[in-house]
């Protein structure tokens, strides 16, 4: 039943936000930052529960560890970039949010290059 706790945590946070928004707008922005950080942490604890079996499956299917590690990094980058972009968008500066997303995409692209080359190489080997 802890999903109820989490949702109520968000609702209480939102309620606090509405009160603090008129009185102290800067503090309300920091409050949103804190609430999203805590909720992201909780989501992160759930993700760790998922990662272990997936890792075992990857080892079972003898997937190259390098690929799995890069995929994990890519997920991490996406995770942080989305967090930063939402916070910036919440603060009202959508331009900065799009810049953060751009940097996140580029970082993911950089990490994805070796995997793509590996796939292309295997395909070219298969061709006659």
């Amino acid at each position, binding site marked *: 039943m802890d999903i109820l706790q989490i949702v109520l945590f968000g609702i209480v946070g939102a309620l606090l936000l509405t009160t603090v928004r008129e009185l102290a707008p800067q503090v*309300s922005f920091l409050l949103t930052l804190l609430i999203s950080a805590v909720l992201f942490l909780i989501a992160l604890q759930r993700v760790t529960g998922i990662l272990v079996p997936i890792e075992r499956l990857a080892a079972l299917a003898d997937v190259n560890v390098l690929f799995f590690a890069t995929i994990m990094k890519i997920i991490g980058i996406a995770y942080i970039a989305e967090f930063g972009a939402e916070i910036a968008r919440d603060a009202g500066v959508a331009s900065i949010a799009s810049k953060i997303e751009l940097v996140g995409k580029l970082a993911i692209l950089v990490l994805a290059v070796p995997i793509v080359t590996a796939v292309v190489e295997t395909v070219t080997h298969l061709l006659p």
Partner: protein
Amino acid sequence: MSLELHVLFQIAVVGIAAAVLSSLLKQSGRDEIATLVTISALVLVAAVVVSNISHLFVQIQNVFANQ
């Protein structure tokens, strides 16, 4: 890190207290002290939030980049 609701309430209380105090100080004519109070409240809240955010980022690194 479990669900710390009290941190939320602490931050809300600091924000509201700072707002009330600064408006009180503004009424009584001491404007510079009012700005000082608001800034110090902001710094306090920022310190708490930054420590939580750094905790989050450390957790992310542990989970995703564990090489």
